[in-house]
Protein backbone atom coordinates (compact mmCIF):
# COMPACT_ATOMS: atom_id res chain seq x y z
CA UNK A 1 0.00 0.00 0.00
CA UNK A 2 2.78 2.41 1.02
CA UNK A 3 4.53 1.72 -2.26
CA UNK A 4 1.40 2.56 -4.29
CA UNK A 5 1.08 5.84 -2.41
CA UNK A 6 4.71 6.70 -3.22
CA UNK A 7 4.22 5.86 -6.90
CA UNK A 8 1.03 7.94 -7.13
CA UNK A 9 2.74 10.81 -5.32
CA UNK A 10 5.69 10.66 -7.72
CA UNK A 11 3.41 10.61 -10.75
CA UNK A 12 1.80 13.86 -9.69
CA UNK A 13 5.11 15.64 -9.00
CA UNK A 14 7.22 17.28 -11.73
CA UNK A 15 10.42 15.63 -12.92
CA UNK A 16 13.47 15.92 -10.67
CA UNK A 17 15.77 15.92 -13.69
CA UNK A 18 16.53 19.39 -15.02
CA UNK A 19 16.24 20.30 -18.68
CA UNK A 20 19.45 21.49 -20.39
CA UNK A 21 18.17 25.05 -20.60
CA UNK A 22 17.22 25.03 -16.92
CA UNK A 23 20.76 25.25 -15.54
CA UNK A 24 21.22 25.90 -11.82
CA UNK A 25 22.65 29.29 -10.88
CA UNK A 26 26.37 29.40 -10.32
CA UNK A 27 27.62 30.96 -7.08
CA UNK A 28 29.19 34.45 -7.24
CA UNK A 29 32.60 32.91 -6.49
CA UNK A 30 32.42 30.68 -9.58
CA UNK A 31 35.62 30.35 -11.61
CA UNK A 32 34.74 30.86 -15.26
CA UNK A 33 36.82 31.98 -18.23
CA UNK A 34 39.52 34.61 -17.90
CA UNK A 35 39.13 38.27 -18.74
CA UNK A 36 42.15 40.44 -19.46
CA UNK A 37 42.49 44.20 -19.29
CA UNK A 38 45.22 45.29 -21.69
CA UNK A 39 45.50 48.77 -20.16
CA UNK A 40 46.65 47.32 -16.83
CA UNK A 41 48.95 44.63 -18.24
CA UNK A 42 52.70 45.20 -18.18
CA UNK A 43 53.49 41.93 -20.01
CA UNK A 44 55.68 40.90 -17.06
CA UNK A 45 54.92 37.21 -17.75
CA UNK A 46 53.98 36.22 -14.19
CA UNK A 47 50.68 34.70 -15.36
CA UNK A 48 52.45 32.51 -17.93
CA UNK A 49 55.05 31.53 -15.30
CA UNK A 50 52.47 30.25 -12.79
CA UNK A 51 50.18 28.59 -15.38
CA UNK A 52 50.82 24.85 -15.03
CA UNK A 53 48.85 23.73 -18.15
CA UNK A 54 50.30 26.61 -20.24
CA UNK A 55 46.92 28.07 -21.17
CA UNK A 56 48.44 31.57 -21.22
CA UNK A 57 51.12 32.65 -23.65
CA UNK A 58 52.60 35.85 -25.06
CA UNK A 59 53.35 36.63 -28.68
CA UNK A 60 55.18 39.69 -29.98
CA UNK A 61 54.81 41.94 -32.96
CA UNK A 62 58.27 43.52 -32.61
CA UNK A 63 58.17 47.27 -32.15
CA UNK A 64 54.37 47.42 -32.32
CA UNK A 65 52.61 45.30 -29.73
CA UNK A 66 52.67 42.37 -27.31
CA UNK A 67 49.69 39.99 -27.32
CA UNK A 68 48.40 38.15 -24.27
CA UNK A 69 46.77 34.90 -25.39
CA UNK A 70 44.49 32.51 -23.54
CA UNK A 71 42.99 29.19 -24.62
CA UNK A 72 40.24 27.76 -22.44
CA UNK A 73 40.85 24.17 -23.63
CA UNK A 74 44.08 24.09 -21.62
CA UNK A 75 42.82 26.09 -18.63
CA UNK A 76 42.44 24.29 -15.30
CA UNK A 77 40.60 27.20 -13.60
CA UNK A 78 43.03 27.23 -10.67
CA UNK A 79 42.98 31.04 -10.67
CA UNK A 80 46.72 31.34 -9.96
CA UNK A 81 47.17 33.86 -12.82
CA UNK A 82 44.58 36.23 -11.37
CA UNK A 83 45.94 35.66 -7.87
CA UNK A 84 49.55 36.40 -8.80
CA UNK A 85 49.03 39.23 -11.32
CA UNK A 86 50.89 42.23 -9.80
CA UNK A 87 48.65 44.77 -11.57
CA UNK A 88 45.29 42.90 -11.31
CA UNK A 89 44.95 42.82 -15.09
CA UNK A 90 43.44 39.30 -15.07
CA UNK A 91 40.23 38.22 -13.43
CA UNK A 92 38.06 35.12 -13.54
CA UNK A 93 34.60 35.81 -14.96
CA UNK A 94 31.63 34.53 -12.97
CA UNK A 95 29.79 33.32 -16.10
CA UNK A 96 29.82 29.70 -17.23
CA UNK A 97 31.95 29.35 -20.38
CA UNK A 98 30.31 27.83 -23.46
CA UNK A 99 30.77 24.14 -24.13
CA UNK A 100 33.76 22.90 -26.09
CA UNK A 101 34.40 19.69 -27.93
CA UNK A 102 38.04 18.95 -27.34
CA UNK A 103 41.05 20.33 -25.55
CA UNK A 104 42.96 20.48 -28.82
CA UNK A 105 40.49 22.25 -31.04
CA UNK A 106 37.60 24.57 -30.47
CA UNK A 107 36.74 26.54 -27.37
CA UNK A 108 37.04 30.06 -26.14
CA UNK A 109 40.24 31.84 -27.18
CA UNK A 110 41.21 35.31 -26.16
CA UNK A 111 43.82 37.62 -27.61
CA UNK A 112 44.41 40.88 -25.86
CA UNK A 113 46.72 43.32 -27.65
CA UNK A 114 48.95 45.56 -25.57
CA UNK A 115 50.24 48.33 -27.89
CA UNK A 116 53.83 49.42 -27.34
CA UNK A 117 54.60 53.09 -26.91
CA UNK A 118 57.70 54.99 -27.97
CA UNK A 119 59.80 56.38 -25.14
CA UNK A 120 59.53 60.18 -25.04
CA UNK A 121 63.25 60.44 -24.32
CA UNK A 122 65.01 57.78 -26.39
CA UNK A 123 62.24 56.53 -28.68
CA UNK A 124 62.49 52.83 -27.69
CA UNK A 125 59.21 50.89 -27.94
CA UNK A 126 58.07 49.62 -24.54
CA UNK A 127 55.01 48.44 -22.64
CA UNK A 128 53.75 51.40 -20.60
CA UNK A 129 52.96 50.98 -16.90
CA UNK A 130 49.25 51.04 -15.91
CA UNK A 131 47.96 54.61 -15.52
CA UNK A 132 47.12 54.09 -11.85
CA UNK A 133 50.67 52.92 -11.09
CA UNK A 134 52.14 55.95 -12.88
CA UNK A 135 49.80 58.31 -11.00
CA UNK A 136 50.88 56.78 -7.70
CA UNK A 137 54.58 56.99 -8.63
CA UNK A 138 54.90 60.35 -10.33
CA UNK A 139 51.59 62.21 -10.36
CA UNK A 140 49.88 63.25 -13.58
CA UNK A 141 52.22 65.76 -15.26
CA UNK A 142 55.64 64.20 -14.81
CA UNK A 143 57.96 63.83 -17.82
CA UNK A 144 58.99 60.33 -16.67
CA UNK A 145 55.53 58.96 -17.53
CA UNK A 146 56.54 58.50 -21.12
CA UNK A 147 59.94 56.96 -20.39
CA UNK A 148 60.94 53.38 -21.18
CA UNK A 149 62.23 51.23 -18.25
CA UNK A 150 65.83 51.98 -19.27
CA UNK A 151 65.29 55.73 -19.21
CA UNK A 152 63.32 55.51 -15.96
CA UNK A 153 66.30 53.78 -14.42
CA UNK A 154 68.58 56.47 -15.78
CA UNK A 155 66.29 59.21 -14.47
CA UNK A 156 66.18 57.67 -11.00
CA UNK A 157 69.97 57.30 -11.06
CA UNK A 158 70.40 60.89 -12.20
CA UNK A 159 68.17 62.17 -9.37
CA UNK A 160 70.23 60.25 -6.85
CA UNK A 161 73.46 61.51 -8.35
CA UNK A 162 72.30 65.13 -8.26
CA UNK A 163 71.26 64.70 -4.64
CA UNK A 164 74.80 63.64 -3.70
CA UNK A 165 76.92 65.65 -6.20
CA UNK A 166 74.85 68.63 -7.37
CA UNK A 167 77.46 69.68 -9.96
CA UNK A 168 77.56 66.25 -11.68
CA UNK A 169 74.01 66.61 -12.96
CA UNK A 170 74.93 68.56 -16.11
CA UNK A 171 77.93 66.46 -17.16
CA UNK A 172 76.43 63.00 -17.43
CA UNK A 173 74.79 62.07 -20.71
CA UNK A 174 72.86 58.90 -21.28
CA UNK A 175 73.45 57.26 -24.64
CA UNK A 176 71.49 54.35 -26.03
Amino acid at each position, binding site marked *: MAMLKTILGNLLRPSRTRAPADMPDVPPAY*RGALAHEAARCTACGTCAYVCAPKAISFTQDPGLSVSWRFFIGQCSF*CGLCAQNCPTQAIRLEAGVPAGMNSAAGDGFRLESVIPLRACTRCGAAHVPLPASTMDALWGSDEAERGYCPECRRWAAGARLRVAFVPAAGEEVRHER
Partner: protein
Amino acid sequence: MPYSFPLGPYHPALEEPFKVKVQCRGEVIDSATVEVGFSFRGIELLAQKRNWVEVITLIERVCGICSNTHAMTFCMAAETIAGIEVPRRAAHIRTIIAELERLHSHLLWAGVGAEDIGFHSLFMEVFTLRELVMDTLEAISGNRVNYGMNCIGGVHRDIPDPKQHLPALDRLATGLAEIVIPTFTGNPTALARTRGVGRLSREQAVEWAVVGPVARASGLDIDVRKDQPYLSYAGLGFASVMRPEGDVLARVVVRALEMVESIRLIREALLSLPAGPLRATEGLPEIPVGEASIRTEAPRGEAFYYVASEGGPTPSRVKIRTPSFVNIPAIEAMVVGQPLADLSIIQASVDPCISCTDR
Protein backbone atom coordinates in the same frame (compact mmCIF):
# COMPACT_ATOMS: atom_id res chain seq x y z
CA MET B 1 38.07 -27.88 -9.30
CA PRO B 2 40.06 -24.68 -8.69
CA TYR B 3 40.16 -22.09 -11.42
CA SER B 4 41.58 -18.60 -11.74
CA PHE B 5 39.53 -15.64 -12.77
CA PRO B 6 40.80 -12.19 -13.84
CA LEU B 7 38.62 -9.33 -12.66
CA GLY B 8 39.49 -6.05 -14.34
CA PRO B 9 41.49 -4.01 -15.16
CA TYR B 10 38.44 -2.18 -16.47
CA HIS B 11 35.55 -1.54 -14.09
CA PRO B 12 36.24 -4.27 -11.52
CA ALA B 13 33.92 -2.47 -9.09
CA LEU B 14 34.57 1.19 -9.71
CA GLU B 15 35.30 3.22 -12.82
CA GLU B 16 39.04 2.99 -12.33
CA PRO B 17 41.52 0.49 -13.70
CA PHE B 18 42.99 -2.12 -11.39
CA LYS B 19 43.07 -5.84 -11.69
CA VAL B 20 42.32 -8.62 -9.22
CA LYS B 21 43.41 -12.11 -10.19
CA VAL B 22 41.25 -14.47 -8.16
CA GLN B 23 41.85 -18.17 -7.46
CA CYS B 24 38.46 -19.79 -6.84
CA ARG B 25 37.26 -23.18 -5.66
CA GLY B 26 33.64 -23.29 -6.76
CA GLU B 27 32.06 -20.06 -5.54
CA VAL B 28 34.62 -19.50 -2.79
CA ILE B 29 37.77 -17.42 -3.22
CA ASP B 30 41.03 -19.21 -2.30
CA SER B 31 43.39 -16.31 -2.88
CA ALA B 32 43.67 -13.10 -4.82
CA THR B 33 46.44 -10.99 -6.31
CA VAL B 34 45.97 -7.28 -6.85
CA GLU B 35 47.69 -5.48 -9.72
CA VAL B 36 47.80 -1.71 -10.02
CA GLY B 37 49.65 0.70 -12.29
CA PHE B 38 47.33 0.95 -15.28
CA SER B 39 47.01 4.73 -15.13
CA PHE B 40 50.51 5.82 -14.16
CA ARG B 41 51.06 9.49 -14.93
CA GLY B 42 54.51 10.24 -13.50
CA ILE B 43 53.39 13.16 -11.34
CA GLU B 44 56.39 12.85 -8.99
CA LEU B 45 58.81 13.32 -11.89
CA LEU B 46 56.73 16.12 -13.44
CA ALA B 47 56.77 17.89 -10.07
CA GLN B 48 60.55 18.20 -10.35
CA LYS B 49 60.15 20.04 -13.65
CA ARG B 50 57.55 22.63 -12.60
CA ASN B 51 58.05 25.72 -10.46
CA TRP B 52 56.74 25.94 -6.89
CA VAL B 53 53.48 27.62 -7.93
CA GLU B 54 52.73 25.30 -10.86
CA VAL B 55 53.41 22.23 -8.71
CA ILE B 56 50.40 23.07 -6.53
CA THR B 57 48.10 22.84 -9.57
CA LEU B 58 49.84 19.65 -10.66
CA ILE B 59 49.73 17.99 -7.22
CA GLU B 60 46.04 18.84 -6.94
CA ARG B 61 45.50 16.46 -9.87
CA VAL B 62 46.96 13.47 -8.00
CA CYS B 63 43.41 12.61 -6.99
CA GLY B 64 40.07 13.85 -8.23
CA ILE B 65 38.28 13.15 -4.95
CA CYS B 66 40.76 14.28 -2.32
CA SER B 67 42.46 16.95 -4.45
CA ASN B 68 42.57 19.48 -1.64
CA THR B 69 44.37 17.13 0.74
CA HIS B 70 47.24 16.70 -1.70
CA ALA B 71 47.65 20.38 -2.53
CA MET B 72 47.33 21.25 1.16
CA THR B 73 49.89 18.68 2.31
CA PHE B 74 52.34 19.82 -0.35
CA CYS B 75 51.89 23.46 0.71
CA MET B 76 52.36 22.47 4.36
CA ALA B 77 55.63 20.75 3.44
CA ALA B 78 56.86 23.81 1.52
CA GLU B 79 55.83 26.04 4.43
CA THR B 80 57.77 23.82 6.85
CA ILE B 81 60.91 24.13 4.69
CA ALA B 82 60.56 27.90 4.41
CA GLY B 83 59.55 28.33 8.07
CA ILE B 84 56.28 30.09 7.18
CA GLU B 85 53.51 30.02 9.74
CA VAL B 86 50.04 30.01 8.22
CA PRO B 87 47.63 32.65 9.61
CA ARG B 88 44.94 31.22 11.89
CA ARG B 89 42.11 32.19 9.56
CA ALA B 90 43.82 30.35 6.69
CA ALA B 91 44.32 27.26 8.90
CA HIS B 92 40.60 27.32 9.77
CA ILE B 93 39.59 27.65 6.10
CA ARG B 94 41.91 24.78 5.19
CA THR B 95 40.31 22.66 7.93
CA ILE B 96 36.82 23.48 6.64
CA ILE B 97 37.70 22.56 3.06
CA ALA B 98 39.49 19.38 4.18
CA GLU B 99 36.47 18.25 6.20
CA LEU B 100 34.00 19.16 3.44
CA GLU B 101 36.15 17.09 1.14
CA ARG B 102 36.03 14.17 3.57
CA LEU B 103 32.22 14.45 3.63
CA HIS B 104 32.09 14.46 -0.15
CA SER B 105 34.53 11.54 -0.41
CA HIS B 106 32.70 9.41 2.17
CA LEU B 107 29.32 10.16 0.60
CA LEU B 108 30.64 9.27 -2.81
CA TRP B 109 31.96 6.05 -1.33
CA ALA B 110 28.65 5.30 0.40
CA GLY B 111 26.86 5.77 -2.92
CA VAL B 112 29.26 3.51 -4.81
CA GLY B 113 29.05 0.93 -2.01
CA ALA B 114 25.24 0.98 -2.17
CA GLU B 115 25.42 0.53 -5.94
CA ASP B 116 27.82 -2.42 -5.52
CA ILE B 117 25.36 -4.30 -3.34
CA GLY B 118 22.61 -3.54 -5.87
CA PHE B 119 20.87 -0.95 -3.69
CA HIS B 120 20.22 1.64 -6.37
CA SER B 121 17.67 3.78 -4.54
CA LEU B 122 20.08 4.28 -1.63
CA PHE B 123 22.73 5.33 -4.15
CA MET B 124 20.40 8.03 -5.46
CA GLU B 125 19.61 9.28 -1.95
CA VAL B 126 23.29 9.42 -1.01
CA PHE B 127 24.23 11.28 -4.16
CA THR B 128 21.46 13.82 -3.54
CA LEU B 129 23.06 14.49 -0.15
CA ARG B 130 26.50 14.67 -1.73
CA GLU B 131 25.23 17.41 -4.02
CA LEU B 132 24.74 19.63 -0.94
CA VAL B 133 28.43 19.26 -0.09
CA MET B 134 29.45 19.89 -3.69
CA ASP B 135 27.36 23.07 -3.79
CA THR B 136 28.95 24.29 -0.55
CA LEU B 137 32.43 23.61 -1.91
CA GLU B 138 31.53 25.40 -5.13
CA ALA B 139 30.11 28.37 -3.26
CA ILE B 140 33.33 28.71 -1.22
CA SER B 141 35.99 27.89 -3.77
CA GLY B 142 34.31 28.47 -7.13
CA ASN B 143 35.04 24.93 -8.37
CA ARG B 144 33.24 21.64 -7.87
CA VAL B 145 36.46 19.64 -8.02
CA ASN B 146 40.11 20.72 -7.81
CA TYR B 147 39.23 23.64 -5.58
CA GLY B 148 42.49 25.56 -6.01
CA MET B 149 42.25 26.94 -2.49
CA ASN B 150 45.82 26.45 -1.31
CA CYS B 151 48.91 28.50 -1.87
CA ILE B 152 52.23 28.35 -0.09
CA GLY B 153 51.63 30.52 2.97
CA GLY B 154 47.86 30.35 3.21
CA VAL B 155 44.69 30.13 1.14
CA HIS B 156 43.47 31.95 -1.96
CA ARG B 157 39.86 32.47 -1.10
CA ASP B 158 38.03 33.71 1.94
CA ILE B 159 34.74 32.56 3.46
CA PRO B 160 33.15 36.01 3.79
CA ASP B 161 29.86 34.87 5.32
CA PRO B 162 30.42 31.62 7.28
CA LYS B 163 26.85 31.39 8.59
CA GLN B 164 25.48 31.16 5.04
CA HIS B 165 26.73 27.56 4.82
CA LEU B 166 25.10 26.28 8.03
CA PRO B 167 21.63 25.40 6.60
CA ALA B 168 23.21 23.01 4.07
CA LEU B 169 25.08 21.30 6.92
CA ASP B 170 21.84 20.96 8.90
CA ARG B 171 20.08 19.37 5.92
CA LEU B 172 23.03 17.04 5.44
CA ALA B 173 23.04 16.04 9.11
CA THR B 174 19.31 15.29 8.91
CA GLY B 175 19.77 13.25 5.74
CA LEU B 176 22.57 11.23 7.32
CA ALA B 177 20.68 10.61 10.54
CA GLU B 178 17.36 9.77 8.86
CA ILE B 179 18.32 8.00 5.65
CA VAL B 180 21.93 6.89 5.23
CA ILE B 181 22.87 5.60 8.69
CA PRO B 182 19.52 3.81 9.46
CA THR B 183 19.49 2.18 6.00
CA PHE B 184 23.05 0.91 6.13
CA THR B 185 22.73 -0.34 9.72
CA GLY B 186 19.10 -1.49 9.78
CA ASN B 187 17.99 -2.51 6.30
CA PRO B 188 18.06 -6.35 6.02
CA THR B 189 19.27 -6.20 2.38
CA ALA B 190 22.19 -3.93 3.23
CA LEU B 191 23.07 -5.93 6.38
CA ALA B 192 22.99 -9.26 4.52
CA ARG B 193 25.59 -7.99 2.08
CA THR B 194 27.89 -6.27 4.61
CA ARG B 195 27.80 -7.96 8.04
CA GLY B 196 30.66 -10.42 8.54
CA VAL B 197 31.83 -9.89 4.94
CA GLY B 198 35.48 -9.22 4.09
CA ARG B 199 36.80 -9.45 7.62
CA LEU B 200 40.21 -8.00 8.41
CA SER B 201 41.31 -8.75 11.97
CA ARG B 202 43.30 -6.34 14.10
CA GLU B 203 46.46 -8.47 13.66
CA GLN B 204 45.99 -8.58 9.88
CA ALA B 205 45.38 -4.83 9.84
CA VAL B 206 48.73 -4.31 11.57
CA GLU B 207 50.45 -6.81 9.28
CA TRP B 208 49.10 -5.20 6.09
CA ALA B 209 49.73 -1.72 7.54
CA VAL B 210 46.32 -0.36 6.55
CA VAL B 211 45.44 3.23 7.41
CA GLY B 212 42.40 5.44 7.73
CA PRO B 213 38.83 4.17 8.03
CA VAL B 214 39.91 0.62 7.10
CA ALA B 215 42.31 0.50 10.07
CA ARG B 216 39.82 2.15 12.40
CA ALA B 217 37.16 -0.41 11.40
CA SER B 218 39.59 -3.18 12.43
CA GLY B 219 40.13 -1.81 15.92
CA LEU B 220 43.25 0.26 15.27
CA ASP B 221 42.74 3.70 16.69
CA ILE B 222 45.04 5.66 14.37
CA ASP B 223 44.18 9.06 12.99
CA VAL B 224 46.73 11.78 12.19
CA ARG B 225 44.18 14.43 13.18
CA LYS B 226 44.27 13.03 16.72
CA ASP B 227 47.81 11.63 16.96
CA GLN B 228 49.63 14.61 15.50
CA PRO B 229 47.13 17.48 15.26
CA TYR B 230 47.74 19.91 12.40
CA LEU B 231 45.81 22.97 11.16
CA SER B 232 43.01 23.74 13.64
CA TYR B 233 42.20 20.19 14.79
CA ALA B 234 43.76 20.60 18.25
CA GLY B 235 41.56 23.62 18.97
CA LEU B 236 38.35 22.11 17.59
CA GLY B 237 38.44 19.04 19.84
CA PHE B 238 38.55 16.07 17.52
CA ALA B 239 37.06 12.68 18.47
CA SER B 240 38.02 9.67 16.34
CA VAL B 241 35.68 6.80 15.51
CA MET B 242 36.77 3.18 16.03
CA ARG B 243 35.02 -0.19 15.59
CA PRO B 244 36.48 -3.59 16.45
CA GLU B 245 34.61 -5.91 14.01
CA GLY B 246 36.73 -5.41 10.89
CA ASP B 247 34.02 -6.34 8.36
CA VAL B 248 32.46 -4.26 5.59
CA LEU B 249 29.68 -3.12 7.90
CA ALA B 250 32.24 -1.77 10.37
CA ARG B 251 33.90 0.21 7.56
CA VAL B 252 30.51 1.63 6.59
CA VAL B 253 29.73 2.59 10.18
CA VAL B 254 33.17 4.16 10.74
CA ARG B 255 32.76 6.32 7.64
CA ALA B 256 29.18 7.24 8.51
CA LEU B 257 30.12 8.32 12.05
CA GLU B 258 33.16 10.16 10.71
CA MET B 259 30.80 12.17 8.51
CA VAL B 260 28.80 13.15 11.59
CA GLU B 261 32.04 14.22 13.29
CA SER B 262 33.10 16.14 10.15
CA ILE B 263 29.82 18.05 10.13
CA ARG B 264 30.42 18.97 13.77
CA LEU B 265 34.00 20.10 13.00
CA ILE B 266 32.91 22.20 10.01
CA ARG B 267 30.12 23.85 11.99
CA GLU B 268 32.49 24.62 14.87
CA ALA B 269 35.17 25.95 12.51
CA LEU B 270 32.66 28.11 10.60
CA LEU B 271 31.31 29.61 13.82
CA SER B 272 34.75 30.26 15.31
CA LEU B 273 36.44 31.58 12.16
CA PRO B 274 39.12 33.98 13.47
CA ALA B 275 39.73 37.33 11.79
CA GLY B 276 43.01 38.04 10.08
CA PRO B 277 44.92 37.74 6.84
CA LEU B 278 44.59 34.83 4.41
CA ARG B 279 48.26 34.62 3.47
CA ALA B 280 51.48 34.93 5.43
CA THR B 281 53.53 35.86 2.37
CA GLU B 282 53.21 38.12 -0.65
CA GLY B 283 54.21 37.37 -4.20
CA LEU B 284 55.84 34.26 -5.59
CA PRO B 285 57.19 31.87 -2.95
CA GLU B 286 60.91 31.47 -2.35
CA ILE B 287 61.73 28.13 -0.79
CA PRO B 288 65.21 27.82 0.75
CA VAL B 289 67.35 24.67 0.79
CA GLY B 290 65.78 22.04 3.02
CA GLU B 291 63.50 19.05 3.27
CA ALA B 292 60.29 18.22 5.09
CA SER B 293 57.99 15.27 5.55
CA ILE B 294 54.36 15.89 6.43
CA ARG B 295 51.51 13.56 7.32
CA THR B 296 47.86 14.50 7.02
CA GLU B 297 44.65 12.52 7.30
CA ALA B 298 43.15 12.30 3.83
CA PRO B 299 39.58 10.95 3.57
CA ARG B 300 41.00 7.48 2.93
CA GLY B 301 43.71 7.59 5.59
CA GLU B 302 47.16 8.91 6.14
CA ALA B 303 48.77 10.78 3.24
CA PHE B 304 52.52 11.21 3.45
CA TYR B 305 54.58 13.82 1.60
CA TYR B 306 58.32 14.22 1.46
CA VAL B 307 59.42 17.43 -0.24
CA ALA B 308 63.03 18.47 -0.78
CA SER B 309 64.26 21.81 -2.03
CA GLU B 310 67.65 22.84 -3.36
CA GLY B 311 66.66 26.48 -3.23
CA GLY B 312 65.88 26.73 -6.95
CA PRO B 313 62.65 27.57 -8.71
CA THR B 314 61.47 23.92 -8.63
CA PRO B 315 61.28 21.29 -5.90
CA SER B 316 64.11 18.79 -6.18
CA ARG B 317 61.99 15.86 -4.97
CA VAL B 318 58.31 15.32 -4.18
CA LYS B 319 57.56 11.88 -2.78
CA ILE B 320 53.90 11.05 -2.34
CA ARG B 321 52.53 8.06 -0.47
CA THR B 322 48.79 7.95 -0.65
CA PRO B 323 46.50 6.00 1.70
CA SER B 324 45.07 3.77 -1.04
CA PHE B 325 48.60 2.59 -1.85
CA VAL B 326 48.64 0.63 1.44
CA ASN B 327 44.92 -0.12 1.67
CA ILE B 328 44.52 -1.77 -1.75
CA PRO B 329 46.90 -4.74 -1.12
CA ALA B 330 44.89 -5.58 2.02
CA ILE B 331 42.07 -6.69 -0.30
CA GLU B 332 44.15 -9.87 -0.76
CA ALA B 333 43.73 -10.66 2.95
CA MET B 334 40.05 -9.72 3.08
CA VAL B 335 38.71 -11.88 0.25
CA VAL B 336 40.09 -15.29 1.36
CA GLY B 337 37.19 -17.68 1.99
CA GLN B 338 34.58 -15.21 0.75
CA PRO B 339 32.02 -15.87 -2.01
CA LEU B 340 33.06 -14.53 -5.42
CA ALA B 341 29.94 -12.34 -5.57
CA ASP B 342 31.12 -10.41 -2.51
CA LEU B 343 34.43 -9.50 -4.14
CA SER B 344 33.12 -6.23 -5.58
CA ILE B 345 31.78 -4.86 -2.27
CA ILE B 346 34.95 -6.01 -0.45
CA GLN B 347 37.08 -4.16 -2.97
CA ALA B 348 34.86 -1.13 -2.72
CA SER B 349 34.92 -1.22 1.09
CA VAL B 350 38.57 -0.12 1.24
CA ASP B 351 37.57 2.83 -0.97
CA PRO B 352 40.38 2.21 -3.45
CA CYS B 353 41.54 5.30 -5.27
CA ILE B 354 43.55 4.17 -8.27
CA SER B 355 44.20 7.69 -9.39
CA CYS B 356 46.11 8.34 -6.12
CA THR B 357 47.82 4.95 -6.10
CA ASP B 358 49.16 5.21 -9.63
CA ARG B 359 49.91 8.95 -9.47
